[in-house]
């Protein structure tokens, strides 16, 4: 009896101390899941989700106050990836996603005012004052921050053009 009580008390104390030490030395700052989600997200901090940047959105998704579908540039692919990471079910049917999009400058409308290039989070818009601007395809994340800045509506979002290098053979139709 005494032996049992003693050994259990000792075990309890030992593990308690161990846990205390672990809490001190192996402490993780912040939620690691937030970091993982952040790695999946576009990272352009465009703010379309209504949160202050991608890290804000990632935190909100993890604590459940935002849906995984809140990121328009990420689209369905990102929502599915987030849901898989968090192990939750997500309803993608309500999500409007016509595939990835990028901004395109209509050259005949651009007046070279430089307003769009100032707001682009990835510096994807190229151009000098009174020169026609252009969007670098590989750098544009499709955040559409530039669209409303354009005074002549020369910027439009278009589906990412398919090229020989980007083409994927379509899935065969099921039997």
């Amino acid at each position: 009896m005494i032996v049992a009580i003693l050994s259990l008390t000792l075990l309890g104390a030992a593990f308690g101390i161990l846990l205390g030490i672990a809490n001190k030395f192996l402490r993780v700052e912040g939620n690691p899941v937030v970091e993982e989600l952040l790695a999946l997200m576009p990272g352009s901090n465009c703010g379309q989700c209504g949160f202050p940047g991608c890290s804000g959105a990632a935190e909100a998704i993890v604590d459940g106050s935002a849906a995984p579908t809140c990121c328009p540039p990420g689209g369905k692919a990102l929502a599915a990836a987030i849901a898989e990471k968090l192990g939750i079910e997500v309803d993608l049917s309500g999500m409007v996603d016509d595939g990835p999009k990028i901004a395109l400058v209509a050259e005949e409308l651009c007046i070279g005012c430089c307003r769009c290039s100032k707001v682009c989070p990835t510096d994807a818009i190229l151009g000098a004052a009174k020169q026609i601007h252009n969007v670098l395809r590989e750098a544009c994340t499709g955040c559409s921050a530039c669209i409303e800045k354009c005074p002549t509506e020369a910027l439009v979002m278009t589906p990412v053009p398919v090229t020989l290098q980007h083409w994927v053979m379509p899935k065969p139709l099921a039997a």
Partner: protein
Amino acid sequence: MGFMNLFKHFLGKDWGVHPADHKRPASDVPTRKLPIPPRLHLMLSQHVGAPSRPIVLVGEKVRKGQLIAAAQGNISAPLHASTSGTISAIGEITAPHASGLPGMAISIDSDGEDAWVETEVITDPFSLSPEDIAKRVAAAGVVGLGGATFPSSVKLNLGRRSKIDTLIMNGSECEPYLSCDDRLMRDRAADIVTGIRLMLISTGAGEAKVGIEDNKPEAIAAMREAAARFDNVTIFPVPARYPMGSDRQLIVELTGREVPSDARAADVGVIVHNVGTAYAVQQAVCLGRPLVSRVMTLNGGAAATPGNYEVPLGTLISDLVAFTGGTTGDVAKLVMGGPMMGTILPHMRVPVIKGTSGILLLDANEAAGGEVEDCIRCGSCVKACPMGLLPLEMSARIRNDEMDAAADLGLADCIACGCCAYVCPSHIPLVQYFYHAKGDLYARERNKLRTEATKKMALQRQERLEREQREKVEAAAKRKAERAAAAAAAAAAEAAKQGESA
């Protein structure tokens, strides 16, 4: 799955399929030369790697064999004018690709003279150093002519970096309908053997083994005669079975070595080149002639005069078909390459590229596929798969968009030979599923890289903005200090002046 693999183990060496080869009578007709068409279109990207960069301007006069686009990057190939004439355009044209999307091309209006540039003829090519041979091959724009179009010089240089003991020459030509390698071996065996010997020097390999399928007895005889004087070049007839021409299968057949899943042929000490490439190497090194034409097969039920043709690169398929007498009946399926692995083309207004081994004009009878039905789990595809994969399991997962599950089953090892789809009694387009899944996985990988890159850009922009802000504040503070100092100095001067006057 373990059980299925065990099952397969007992089946033994029974991979592949035996489709009707349809090679004759096209292969028995001597190679004919196509006259120069009025306009040629040379695609800038007709090899694996970075597209070549144009170095000519529209309106410029060029001669046959003149460099018109330079290689850029480590894996790339230069491009040469395939006839003499004037550069008429540099722009987009429909690419010989299943997507039917456009690609950049240089168009040449031929002047009909077909005049070569000055070429350097080497009298003793065997005295060249290995590096020199590889350099000449690279400058001539030679790529793998079996259809893979990998820059040949890169592979030749590989021999000096990793230990290569055997050079495997692929003359198996296992695809049905095609006979361009067969014809080349019959007509130009001596040149091919010279090319093989040059490649031996360049790779540093001790011997060359030429694998030719036993359904080409004339080619075997011609090559044996040409190689008889050389101990280090041996001709090996291999059983006719599709896909014998796949490098991994041919390596096992000729050397008994198996290339591991995540390794390349060079890792087991061999390197594989096509016999057509050997001919191009001979032309490039001995005669200084860049790759500007190739022998290709025109075949199929709707072809008026099936046979092999030496075609200048950039010839439109429509010009080729028109020259050979048009079509007999409707073309149900237009294929570039062989019927098993070839590319289905959208229309005939696409140019011949370096990798075009054949053009098939298949009639309705040949193109007919059966109605797609449900999988009956017969295992025919498992037996046929030369890579030991489970096509039925992989396709079932891909159908439900579970690409990762398919990748776990070995999708990356699939060589897309099409044996599985060929044998499937339910006519399931198995290989098309694998093409789709591979493309999808590749696109995902590329997207990930792109996201990482854009993230980096966003971060750099933020840093730049912060730095600019900081500099602005500092500059403002500096100006303020300067103004204060100036004001103080002025006040002091004023005070001194007042003091003087007082």
